């Protein structure tokens, strides 16, 4: 058995290799303060994260993407993390669930330390068992990137340019 702390440090290593950042936080309150300190405006919060935080701006249900496009900080929640790859699994059935992770500049993704699994294969097993989750699920591994111009790796294209995994201990 791999211990929880080994798993978390492996997760951190993989995520950092994918240009992601990591913060260890004790509570949702701490997470809010952390996220709020990252930008000048109020963080926007996905419906799933709002269930825990009970604060922050929600995307407008009618026009979710336009309503929060390019806001500086967004907060959402992952169903699980993958130590092997540093990925976070986002389950986002409707566009309103997805708006925050698509279009904010600095995305903070909360994940419970106990929800980090060792291998990507476990992530896929979880997905195979959750047909509803697979309606629209994404393993996110670091901030968006491209190397399309002269192979020069550029972080931050059409999705977030910074990504922080907020591990709730």
């Amino acid at each position: 058995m791999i211990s929880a702390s080994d798993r978390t440090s492996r997760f951190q290593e993989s995520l950092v290799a994918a240009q992601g950042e990591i913060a260890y936080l004790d509570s949702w309150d701490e997470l809010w303060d952390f996220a709020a300190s990252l930008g000048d405006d109020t963080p926007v919060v996905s419906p799933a994260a709002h269930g825990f935080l009970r604060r922050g701006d929600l995307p407008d249900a009618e026009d979710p993407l336009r309503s929060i496009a390019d806001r500086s900080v967004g907060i959402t929640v992952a169903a699980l993390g993958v130590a092997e790859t540093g990925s976070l699994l986002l389950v986002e059935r409707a566009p309103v669930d997805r708006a925050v992770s698509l279009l904010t500049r600095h995305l903070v993704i909360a994940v419970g330390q106990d929800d980090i699994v060792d291998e990507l294969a476990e992530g896929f097993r979880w997905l195979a068992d959750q047909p509803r989750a697979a309606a629209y699920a994404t393993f996110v591994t670091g901030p968006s990137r491209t190397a399309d111009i002269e192979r020069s790796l550029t972080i931050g294209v059409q999705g977030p340019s910074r990504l922080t995994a907020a591990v709730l201990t």
Partner: protein
Amino acid sequence: MIAEFTERYRRAVNDPDLRPRLLAFQRSWRESRDAQVALLEQRTERSFDELRRDFAEVKDATLDRIDDYIAEFRANAEAAGATVVELTTAEEAVEYIAGVCKARGIDLVVKSKSMVSEEIELNDELAERGITAIETDLGEWLLQLAEQRPSHLVMPAIHQKRQYVAEILGEELGREFDPDDIPAMVASAREGLRRHYLAAGTGLTGANALVAETGSIMVVTNEGNMRLATSLPDVHFVTAGIEKLIPTWADAERQLQLLPRSATAQTLSTYTTCITGAQPGKEMHIILLDNGRREMRLDDTIGAALRCIRCGACANVCPPYQVVGGHTFGHIYTGAIGLVNTAFHHDVEAAAGPQGLCVSCGACETVCPVAIPLPRQILQIRRRTTESGHAPRWERWLLRAWSAPQLFRAAMKLGAVASTLARAVGLVRRDHIRLPLPRRLNWRSIPAIPSQTGSDLIDNRQPQPTLESTPASGTTVDLFAQCLANRLMPDTVDASARLIEAGGANVNVPPNQHCCGLPAFDAGDWETARRMARAAIDALSRADHRIVTPATSCVISMRDHWPQLFRDEPQTLSRANAVADRVHDLAAWLDGPGRLPDGCLEQEESGSWTAHRFCQSSNRGEPGARIDLLVERLTGETSLPLEEAEVCCGFGGLTSIAAPEVGEGIIERKLECIMASGCETLLTNNPGCALHLRAGAVARGASHNTQHYADFLASRLPDDPPS
């Protein structure tokens, strides 16, 4: 419209930036991909070969029951609210998409990257029907703005330089861009594309996998555009080839172990998105396209090409691709796989142009994450293009002359006389004739043809005394001198005989031997190849001696090409196999039946050396490929390190004649590595490579000597061996 091949070729070789850019790309990809694969092997405790063969089995098993998996996929996807349509041709796919758009009043499509949409030339077709398609992957968007096509499967705009990108972005967005500020150019995609996402009635994506057990699609991307294209518009089209079906999510994970590592040398791409069915209030149309795929699967040799997961690795190690890029090395699909599947998704005409560019080095197969036998498939397609009359006329005549031993000998004799005359008037330097050659050809000098052949030399000399007894002592060995070596490298043929004799065997040179048929086989002219092979089989069937040759390529030809050539001629096939079973590559012989002991040859104080290892045998892992280790073992001398020692030298059979710029580009890369090694002597193990590398070095004025390793070893045989 895609320009004619000759035009694409001309453009590519006249672009001074293309080669260095692609070279830097190939080298950095190789390094990062190898590191990724090493980590994967370490983590899984399985070799890359085992991992890829496992997944290839999954793909094969799925393809063998493709209709069952499509039915399962359809049932699950439709239960989740998607519409699944199976279409046979590109036209049907275009009509379906256009039809849905018209019915919904949609005139703008935002697209995430999809090779199938390129395959069916969707953008142009939709434009003709009044529907605008906007590419949203940055590279694809840049290509669209420039009215170009992808030149690589995963790095579509790899041929564009940043100055050019700045120009086209400036035109599109109406402001100036600093070509050195790549982040600013990248950031412009966010603003440049946003209005299209918001206005589009439909988003179109491809799929990296179609998961039958849940009816889901899986797409891997890095930019985030695919998620936008599937979140804003109300209709989602998926265009995918039927070969993208896989049974389960566990298989999807297996695919992901191989795909991003092989594609961009990432552990995992940034976004791995799984979508099952239509989202609430939206439509999803999944188009499963055949377009020649079932026909491909029926072909014994080509069928495995449907395993392809479109990673582009085959292009990333391809020496000719590095010289000309994907617009030339390919059609719509680029790289080695493009030389194969173009004939099925498009036509033989479209596949014909680039066929002559492949040097058959076999590098593509070594990195293919689904173990597709690409080199063999390319030769099969080349046969089709040649048989349908697409080979250049000079090639046909050259091969006909080559296949007639008398004509070949007469031409070589004439060349030998001319060479003697040239020598007499001082036109020969370093064994090459100094002729003013046109610019296209002057990167390789013309070798002077010696007056005696290899077999002449052996007939007129005393055998080499035995140095050490070996398992082969006292037996007779037939030497296959090889057509090129016998005429152009007679000393190498003699040196090979002496090394065999040093192990106590007697050497016989069977008469009437000429050519194994390799040049014709490589050129796709199987009829001529069969004629040549039959003559070689006759010449080598007079006795049942073991056969040794210094020509590594001919060993591969006998073992691998002959069974293909005579598949439908059982009698010839069994004679061919009997010969092939007796044939040994000289280097393998000297480590095997005729094994000379460690350190038995004399060391020479002076003279550093390194070894270019024949690409084809190295990439196939043939015994004897490591000539550097053999020479070190026998002489006790140490090889200098050589970068890219197993990368092709650019000879490639007729490639360097048909496409001289490709030959030049590849040998330039090779000679740079060789000269950087600081060696005084370069050793190699195939006569074609030796001649090509020597002629290239002389033309360039490089100071090192180029030798077949047999010459190098034989020169170190002791004069007075122990009796």
